[in-house]
């Protein structure tokens, strides 16, 4: 494994019966990169991400995340990654504090470390005032940022974000991307799926998935150049049309 590559995937395939959801995809992600994983709904993004984070076993192909085999060492992979799904899997009936404590505990953090992280997260997100109110009462944008922070409670090298901005209004989306930049600056790798093409502009490199295959992979600038387009949206439309 190349020292710079934190994710390496080779011919990764997932089949459900006759249906091939992910068709032999190969790519690398460098340490510290913001890697955009784009595609229309149903292109196979979520299936691919689930194989990388050890929720789903690949039918064929190999992959390494943070130096561990995604199939044989899935539990090792899990120690080194954070994951936030589009559902922001927080417990609605628990408070922000309790959510942080619970996930910190499940990741095996010490009691002192949990206290530390709780204080930091609440301060960083300015959630101190609602720290003891059930999460259900929080606005969607706050929930989203809390879920993001909790997915990193154990200081993982890589964070996987599966459509983190789904159903959120544009202004909140902008704010969220600012948070993503801050996290990336700390040296963490961000692997993010989205179907908002404007978000692709924020990524260091993007791959575009069409019906299970990666059709394009490069920096947003190079892609626009190659496809002679002004926006990522146009790039995407050209790819889908072919």
């Amino acid at each position, binding site marked *: 494994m190349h020292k710079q590559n934190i994710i390496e995937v080779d011919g990764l395939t997932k089949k459900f019966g006759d249906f091939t959801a992910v068709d032999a995809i190969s790519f690398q992600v460098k340490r510290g990169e913001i890697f955009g994983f784009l595609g229309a709904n149903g292109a196979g993004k979520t299936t691919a991400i689930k194989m990388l984070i*050890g929720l789903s076993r690949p039918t064929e192909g190999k992959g390494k995340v943070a130096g561990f085999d995604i199939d044989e060492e*899935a539990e*090792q992979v*899990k120690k080194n990654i954070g994951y936030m*799904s589009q559902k922001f899997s927080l*417990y609605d009936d628990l408070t922000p504090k309790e959510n942080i404590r*619970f996930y910190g505990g*499940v990741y095996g953090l010490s009691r002192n470390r949990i206290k530390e992280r709780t204080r930091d997260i609440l301060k960083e997100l300015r959630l101190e005032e609602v720290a003891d109110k059930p999460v259900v009462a929080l606005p969607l944008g706050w929930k989203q940022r809390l879920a993001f922070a909790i997915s990193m409670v154990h200081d993982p090298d890589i964070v996987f974000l599966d459509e983190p901005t789904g159903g959120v209004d544009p202004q909140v989306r902008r704010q969220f991307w600012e948070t993503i930049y801050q996290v990336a600056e700390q040296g963490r790798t961000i692997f993010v799926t989205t179907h908002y093409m404007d978000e692709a502009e924020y990524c260091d490199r993007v791959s575009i998935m069409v019906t299970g295959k990666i059709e394009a992979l490069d920096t947003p600038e190079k892609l626009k150049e190659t496809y002679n387009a002004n926006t990522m949206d146009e790039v995407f439309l050209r790819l889908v049309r072919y």
Partner: protein
Amino acid sequence: MQTLRYLIQKEFIQIFRNKALLPMMTALPIIQLIVLSNAASNDVKDVRLVMVDNDQSEISRALTQKIDANDRFTLVEVSFSHDTAFELMQRNKADIILEVPANFERDYHRKEAPKVQMLVNAINGQQATVGSGYLSNIIASLNKEIQPQLSQTIGSQMAAVEVSSNNWYNPELKYPHFMAPGILAELAALLTIVLSAMNVVREREIGTIEQINVTPIQKWEFILGKLVPFLCIGLVLVTVGLLASKLIFDIPVRGSLFLVFGYAIINLVCVLGLGLLISNFADTQQQAIFVAFFFVLIFILMCGLFTPIESMPKWAQYATIPNPLAHFISVTRKVLLKGSSFWDIRWEFIYTIILAVLFNVAAVWSYKKQQ
């Protein structure tokens, strides 16, 4: 182990914060316990009887009086006509017709062994069998009363076998004493099985289970983290239920309560294992509850609470061995009413431990972190 602590803590916070769950876990079972223990009685009272007295003799009148004096029977009518009596049964006004033929007394004295006829409305099987049993007893006892008088006059002594019966362990045949421990066991099993199955599936529906599956948590930790809180709830329910049974029905506690609770823990672990196993195969709460009810219904109907296991066909008796509820009921009845010791209920312990291990190993094994 530390992870486990956080799992259990989180579960308890959620349980105590859920406004609907707590009353459901405490008040409802107590109400059920009180209502069912009183209502689900096999006691037969108020058997409606029509007497057709074609003889109008001393014996037949004595019989009528004896029946009338018995508080289990209500003499609806004394008639001379078979048709009138039959009409009453047709209209569901009578459960039993007792017909004394003409010349009954004369034949009796001639030792021709005359027969009285008992027509039983067997639509209600319980009422019919138990009622006719009582009636046979009354007739037999009347027979016994007349016999000595007869033998004195005729001078031939007849030997009679006398059967006297005593009801041990529940001398007054109080049905709540018999039912309450069983219903308590049933409620504890039912509640924990449904709660545990629903709980995990709910996490799957909300999506939090996916979040847990991307953590390095061990499978057994997850299962145990679900099992322990519901085990505590089950034990609270058993305690409150026993207390209510004692206060309301004054059920006897002849054996060791440690034994009851020791067994209850194993039994609850067993049914919780089944609940968690079910939850691993259900995607929605509806699916979970349907499958849970499939098992719960079989368990309840074949647990010996309403129909004695001893009177089931042989195959069905064997089918109660993998039924944790049957063992629970057997243990509570034996220990509370009979004062049985550990040795007397060792088989219940052994079977339940085997089932508990099977269900829980299967639950851990079938819980998939990776699809």
